[in-house]
């Protein structure tokens, strides 16, 4: 997925010299191709993320297309106010890349883990939020981002989980992408690294339908409402806090348009306690497959099961 990101970035920069990459002294080896092909469009802004975002805003006002790269703990979370005031308020075309989202930096602890970025950015007006699950979604998301005339945050999570799609999907801003059809009763909606887990978990309930959500904002509320209407339970999975992320966004729409049960699976309003492998931390947070299955079983027991309502 990181290769797909690099390919899209280099292609965009080669096609348009207004594309400038700003990095806060991060991205070791990720930008080798970029620096080889577009050395004059590479700006290392130093370990100074706040200034970097302000500079990007100034560059955008001056006619350039800045891409601001950082670890998602820093871009967007550390610089949220700069994104709000300097970029979103003026609807400037700045693309923010938050790398290593979720608990990818499992050994580095809370400073480098990022499970609140979607919630933080989603509340800002004018900015789109993308969260690709594999290299094909990454390619499409980068296209959407560069076509945008306003700010975009692209969340880059765990890179090496393999592909969900066999080819770049047809994707529009706001739409959920169906990756497995089924009549219910359970609809699964997942984003980023959790799409794989959703597909694996869905196998345990006959009739499950699965959608990937590469676009978290805007969200097509008609499509979400339609899913809520047609399935007895919607399970939402994300490597992000259950507060304010995709689960919340789906729940907001469901509550207003077509009240249904929504089971939110994500980081449960807590920090990581221990250090260890990525797989270990996913277990600690209950985001590995066995934990997800258990949580869905428990949820179903609590609500007394679901019946299919699919047409």
């Amino acid at each position: 997925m990181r290769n797909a990101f690099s390919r899209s970035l280099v292609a965009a920069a080669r096609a348009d010299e207004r594309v400038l990459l700003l990095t806060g002294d991060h991205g070791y080896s990720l930008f080798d191709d970029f620096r080889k092909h577009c050395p004059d469009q590479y700006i290392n802004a130093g370990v100074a993320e706040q200034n970097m975002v302000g500079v990007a805003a100034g560059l955008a006002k001056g006619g350039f297309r800045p891409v601001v790269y950082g670890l998602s703990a820093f871009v967007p979370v550390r610089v949220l106010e700069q994104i709000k005031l300097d970029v979103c308020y003026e609807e400037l075309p700045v693309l923010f890349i938050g790398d290593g989202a979720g608990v990818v930096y499992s050994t580095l602890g809370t400073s480098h883990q990022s499970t609140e970025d979607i919630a933080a950015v989603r509340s800002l007006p004018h900015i789109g939020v993308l969260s690709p699950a594999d290299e094909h979604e990454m390619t499409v998301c980068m296209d959407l981002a560069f076509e945008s005339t306003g700010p975009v945050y692209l969340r880059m999570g765990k890179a090496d989980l393999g592909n969900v799609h066999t080819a770049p999907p047809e994707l529009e801003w706001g739409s959920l992408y169906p990756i497995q059809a089924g009549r219910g009763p359970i609809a699964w909606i997942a984003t980023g690294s959790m799409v794989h887990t959703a597909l694996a978990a869905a196998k345990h309930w006959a009739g499950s339908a699965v959608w990937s959500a590469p676009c978290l904002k805007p969200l097509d509320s008609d499509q979400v409402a339609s899913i809520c209407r047609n399935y007895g339970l919607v399970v939402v999975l994300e490597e992000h806090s259950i507060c304010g992320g995709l689960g919340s966004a789906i729940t907001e729409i469901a509550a207003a348009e077509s009240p249904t049960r929504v089971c939110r699976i994500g980081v449960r309003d807590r920090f990581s306690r221990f250090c260890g492998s990525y797989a270990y931390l996913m277990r600690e947070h209950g985001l590995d497959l066995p934990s997800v299955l258990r949580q869905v079983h428990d949820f179903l027991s609590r609500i007394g099961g679901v019946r299919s309502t699919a047409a």
Partner: protein
Amino acid sequence: MIRFQANNLRRTILRMAKAGSSVHIACAFSLVEILAVLYRQHLRHGTGGPRGKGRDYLVLSKGHGVMAQYAILHELGWLMDDDIDHYFGDATRLKGLSDAHVPGLEVSSGSLGHGLSVAVGLALAAKRAGTDQRCYAIVGDGECNEGPIWEALLFASQFGLDNLTTIVDANGYQAMGTTREVMDLGDLTAKLQSFGQETRAVDGHDECAIDEAITDLAAAPPGRPRALVARTVKGHGVSFMAADNRWHYTRLTDETYARAMAELSN
């Protein structure tokens, strides 16, 4: 030719502050001469108006002084009497801090430590686009408490932005007291120099001296960003406001308004 006469500008500020019952009068008064010199003698607007292509940029990072810039925009004809006399009226567009949606204001500031970084980006954009546009950014000395100010100065130096001039409105006060009491900046000129800025210091109410310093900075060897420490008096221009930090927060009464206007009549 527009004169940008300092007492006229201060009277406009008072008109606004009275109409809107606004605070921050002293914050605006300290940078009146700086703005007057820049708009009269240095900024090139071209003919495209406030959003004209190729214009020089005046970035008010110290958003609390925005009434001084409104007074300038009023003299330029970019704001109308109606804007001045209905300041803070319902559904009006001029806010109490700099707001980039207002033509003539380049950045949204007031959350401090933002504007200088945007100014750096504008200066870098001009360099990369090969234009001769210049960018002037005004920051407060209180604002220099903010970390991103120093990040921006480092960046400007590293990237050789000699088309950027950072002007510090060094009035010696911040919201809750003197800069020395609250967060002492020490030798600000030496600090700016050590951050790679070609630096001058000047009496920030002496228009000839400001003009000479900016001209001198422009003539300095290329390759380094410029900085000017303008030693100012918060509330300068009205005797009972000068160096009295209560006028960061105090609102005008009919009586103080009349007295201040009388002092500023030419």
